[in-house]
């Protein structure tokens, strides 16, 4: 099951600390310069708690979860 939440990132705030990718490799990988590449799809329910932790752990508060319309 998927939630109706998606990960979003403020690209100007993001400094490429990379903690999010360490916590949530299922949805976030890092590019060659250690900036996150984020899975654009809805967050699966089982990963929602870890996603919440990744959001809270971002040192510059660039990562967020946004509610989006569920596509059927």
């Amino acid at each position: 099951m998927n939630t109706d939440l998606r990960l979003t990132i403020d690209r100007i705030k993001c400094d490429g600390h990379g903690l999010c990718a360490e916590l949530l490799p299922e949805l976030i990988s890092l590019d060659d310069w250690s900036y996150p590449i984020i899975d654009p799809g809805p967050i699966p329910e089982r990963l929602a708690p870890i996603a919440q932790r990744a959001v809270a752990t971002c040192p510059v508060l660039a990562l967020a979860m946004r509610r989006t319309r569920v596509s059927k």
Partner: protein
Amino acid sequence: MSGLRLLAGPDLRSGAEALADHTRRLGAPALGGRPLIETLVRSGLGGRGGASFPVGLKWRAVAAAASKGPAVVIVNGAEGEPQSHKDKVLMATRPHLILDGAFLAARTLRAAQVVLYIGEEHRKAWSAMALALAERPEAERRITRMAGAPNRYVAGESSAAVHLIDAGAATPTTTPPFPRERGVAAVPTLVQNVETLAHVALIARYGDAWYRSVGRRGAAGTVLLTIAGGVKSPGVLEVEAGTTIEEAVGATGGVSEPAAAVLLGGYFGVWLPAMQAWEIPLDGEALRGRGLALGCGVIGVQPAARCGVCDTARIMRYLAEESSAQCGPCFFGLRALSDACSRLAERGTNRDDIARLKRWAVEVPGRGACKHPDGAVMFLRSALSTFADQFASHPAHWRQQPA
């Protein structure tokens, strides 16, 4: 050169048309308010700053957002695209057409402030607009000021314009919120390119049916173009929408030597093989159907004698340097792409760099606050396909050719 509508009237070489001459020639705009917005929607006019956003819909959005308070109108005359001159020419010759459009917007959207945002290096355009503003009625002058856009590529981006006016830095900001929702001083802000406003000034006089009454191959209206590169007489001209690239280049006297490719839309645009480019109609809708865009209306003709790889490397270096260095994927990604292009140009084809370019071209787009990285990558991808043979067997040279 020639003009059909925006550039009709006195010889462009005689400079800016004065208010008295402008009013004698065209009369005063008839339409305003809500009917003007609906007329703009029906006209199908799209923004001419590059993104082609439907003008009527943008005005509707600002009007709705500003229903409870004042709005701001930004007249965008920051023409950052190096090959583009149409906005500078229009400002320097028909400033009152632009100002008519700006104050129609201000009245229609009940804006308390109008900002003329003009490239500080566009000296002729700046002084023509300043002199024209001084000729306008006191009620218009009182709400208007001028702001200089720094000579940077991204300064003309709409959130960057708002950011400069608000905070003195012409760098893009994270959207949403978009300027039309929350712009200068946090109020709804219309950011509109100068050519677009000039079209509005005429549509307000003559209506949407008139606007659509010219155009070829099913297209509507006219467009300003800058013809650059290997042509006999480069410059700005106005053509009917739907005119083909070949016809537009022909109208300036044609190519000066055999052409290999066309760069459509400037550095934010795409390379097309010349044979494929000639028949393409210059019209937003027709171009969208082919996965293309008019962008800022630059048609750059690439002579066959020039090296496509070296020119691509030169332009990628420019685009990398013009990153506003706010978003990592843009700042580091474009720099890496540019370095790989330069290595290919200087040392010749190598498989590793080609592979890197292809991987990064997938990873980098969509990961900046503005569309700068997306545009640079789209430009690069078009180079890799248009100049595929040259990229596959590029010799170790770096032709330091002037732009």
